[in-house]
């Protein structure tokens, strides 16, 4: 064994240690998020039910906002822009967040985010050292793909947080699934650090696979948001109809703290619509690479088929959003089906279906 190989082996084991450490800290973040939700549920503020009946006839009559300044002289400020949600949608305010307005809950929430950030840094260290150990992009097999995928998902979440978007509600579901994903990666999918076969030696690997990973990680956010939208929408519908069945105490405690259904829906749409072109590009890049490697840009290989299915399913979702009678819940189901197709393309096709896209060891 030569020296370089030994160094690479050291790096590979460092990478494994880092991934395990990141998992430990993600677990702490998970616990902190749980604490946030538990303390939040005891909140009195959180209990104030949302005003559900929006007064649609009353035009927002706010005109010019005046503001008193120190010294008693009131000066006119710039005009205030009044916005109105689309007719037909409920005018419900966003929930207050997992912490339910409690200071303790908020503190735990912040701790959870700090821990997530720390875990993410270590996680990225793990991915990078793996890349160094194999001297290539760390996307040669499912283990590497999964660890990178989780790192990108957390990165997107942290970026949205830094951009002051209202995404703290994503914390618990995200950390939970990141733990699941990493757990699966280190136990079932683990592959010893390995070289790429020459077929994967191409800069298209960087372009095509990185786009696939980013698309997937972002689409995942969209899927979580869509799922929560479905729950929250049902919850709001129940509240809006006081004579019907009312949500249970637990559902109420959780759902009332989430953003309004309209906000979740809008967030999901923006996310999905924003990455759809990237996913389109991923497929095009894949076709260009396939043309260079296999002599045809499209050959209905199972991986290609499922990318196509995923793409058409998302196109279907975008169409549904623009079609009267398909907006809302129906479109949301389509979005979930589309994401399920993405997942199947990744796990299902690699494990159950053989094709040209076989990775080194699963």
């Amino acid at each position, binding site marked *: *064994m030569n020296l370089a*190989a030994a160094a*690479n082996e050291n790096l*590979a084991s460092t990478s494994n240690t880092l991934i395990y450490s990141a998992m430990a800290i993600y677990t702490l973040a998970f616990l902190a998020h749980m604490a946030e939700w538990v303390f939040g549920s005891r909140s009195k503020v959180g209990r104030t039910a949302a005003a559900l009946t929006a007064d649609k006839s009353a035009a*927002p*009559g706010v*005109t*010019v906002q005046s503001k008193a300044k120190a010294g008693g002289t009131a*000066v*006119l*400020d*710039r005009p*205030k*822009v*009044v*916005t*109105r949600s*689309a*007719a*037909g949608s409920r*005018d419900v305010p*966003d929930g207050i967040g997992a912490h339910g307005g409690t200071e303790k809950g908020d503190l735990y929430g912040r701790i959870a985010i700090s821990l997530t950030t720390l875990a993410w840094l270590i996680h990225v260290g793990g991915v990078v050292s793996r890349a160094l150990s194999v001297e290539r992009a760390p996307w040669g097999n499912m283990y590497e793909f999964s660890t990178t995928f989780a790192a990108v998902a957390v990165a997107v979440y942290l970026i949205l947080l830094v951009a002051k978007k*209202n995404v703290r509600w994503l914390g618990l579901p995200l950390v939970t699934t990141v733990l699941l994903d990493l757990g699966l990666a280190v136990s079932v999918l683990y592959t*010893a*650090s*390995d*070289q790429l*076969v*020459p*077929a994967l*030696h191409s800069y*298209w690997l960087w372009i095509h696979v990185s786009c696939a990973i980013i698309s997937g990680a972002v689409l995942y956010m969209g899927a979580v948001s869509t799922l929560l939208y479905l729950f929250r929408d049902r919850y709001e519908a129940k509240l809006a109809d006081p004579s019907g069945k009312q949500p249970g105490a637990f559902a109420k405690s959780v759902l009332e703290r989430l953003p309004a259904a*309209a*906000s979740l829906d*809008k967030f999901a749409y923006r996310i999905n619509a*924003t990455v*759809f*072109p990237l996913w*389109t590009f991923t497929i*095009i890049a894949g*076709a260009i690479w396939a*043309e*260079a490697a296999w*002599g*045809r840009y499209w050959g*209905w*290989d*199972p991986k290609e*088929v499922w990318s*196509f*299915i995923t793409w058409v399913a998302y*196109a*279907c979702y975008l*169409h*549904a959003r*623009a*079609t*009267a*009678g398909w907006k809302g819940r129906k479109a949301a189901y389509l979005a979930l089906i589309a994401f399920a197709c993405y997942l199947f393309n990744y796990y299902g096709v690699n494990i159950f279906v053989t*094709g040209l896209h076989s990775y080194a060891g699963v």
Partner: protein
Amino acid sequence: MAAKTDTHSDTHSETPQDADLGAAGSQLSTAPKEEVSLPSLGPIGWARWFWRQLTSMRVALILLFLLSLGAVPGSLIPQTSIDPVKVDQFKEQHDVLGPIYDKLGMFHVYSSVWFSAIYLLLFISLIGCIVPRTWQFVGQLRGRPPGAPRRLTRLPAYATWRTTAEPEQVLQAAQRTLKKRRFRSHIVGTSVASEKGYLREAGNLIFHIALIVMLVAFAIGNLWKSEGGKLIAEGDGFSNSLTQFDDFKSGSFFDTNDLEPFGFQLDKFVATYERGGPQNGTPRIFRADVTYFSGADGKEHKTSIKVNEPLDIGGDRVYLLSHGYAPDVTVKDGTGKVVYEGAVPFLPQDPKNFTSSGVVKVPGAKTKDGKKNQLGFQGFFVPTFGGKGSGSMFSVFPALDNPRLTLTAYHGDLGVDSGLPQNVYQLETKNLKQYKVDGRAVAQMMSPGQSMKLPNGDGSIKFNGVKQWASFKISHQPGNGLALGGAVAALLGLAGSLFIQRRRVWVRAEPGPDGVTVVEIAGLGRSESAKLPEELADLAYTLQPDAPQAPEPETETEASDPEDSAEPTDSAGNADPSEGARA
């Protein structure tokens, strides 16, 4: 046009908001309206109804869904075009399902009648959708933005203030500002109507047209393509004509006379492998060094072909597919004449370490008496001898470190004269007799340079050395450029369609009941967007010098300090959609 849309809104499902806004909200998109009414009687009525249904968004949606659903079985059931052997296996194992699947075209899903029907309907729907939408869009570009709705307060984003300026002055200033921001705008009555973001619609149309371009490119590529395989040992060559291919297939419209005149020779195949470490034996480089010529001049060039780097030649492409070893042997027959000399490609049985097998067929051999005595050798080859496993030897490394060739010999009739095509990698042993001594098969393991003698003085075979072979795919696929162009156009169109906001802004300035001018501004976007209120707030802010705020009539405060009012306090806060939406 606007009036037409209004009549539509009576009969068809539109959101209450659209109905509220009338013409002002119309045609922000050219999406077809939903048609749910039953057709009037008569064939023409039905035909028209059917056409409207086919080109409606709802049917497009359903067809898209069917398309993705229809693509599923092709990925789960073996396909003839990908792996015919597996299809046969599947048919053997499934007595009941096999014939049913066969009838349904499940073994060639993507060229089956039903799959074609789905995408052809979808594309007819697409064309039927694009043409009227394009006309409508051209009409919108030629026309002017629709005038302000009666009650601007109904719009999703709204602001108002009282100003000391005259209405005329405010409108002029508003139009100037909007024009500077590249809104198309005009003054109607007491308001400015403006619109921006037409590129969204253009992008959407380009995207859908590009889909058609891609389908056409795909069809061209399939109908006029040709594709052939060729295995070449080092030192051998290939020229592009039908007889030279090991296998060849082409699209329905391809004419074999159209094969481009070119050829190449494999000078050397280079493969390197990782030595040591956990990646021991993993390939690092595959490279075929070739000399090629093309066209009439036939001038020779040298280049190399790698796995991801095909050779472009005469409009065709040559891809490196796989590689292996070809032991170089010399066979002498009983008369002592050299009856065979050359490298014989062996096929790898183990893709990692290249334990390979192959056969040598020598039809022209004779016994020492000059009688016909065809020879056949069945052989195993290992590039790095690792010992003998259960009977046969195996390789421990893919590179040529310690090569061995083991042969067993046959004689008799090879069956090559029967005229039936034979597999060059298999020995037809029906009419062959294995050479045996004392009841044991004659077999010998050889290193390069060693020979094996045949019994009865029937000759010998010498293992001279090892060459490598590489197999290539020579493919001719027109329409690739068109497909790529379509894909790029689709991507750009899609980005425009999703990232550009189409929106309308109206500014109204009228004298209020007390004679003071009231300015109202409002915006309407294609989809609810956070940008619109921000843009509106910004517009209101920019208008301040031309339309300074008048004091509130009720509050007895001094006139505003112009410097203070221009201060951009809370500008973001005011426009924050997450707050504003709840107002």
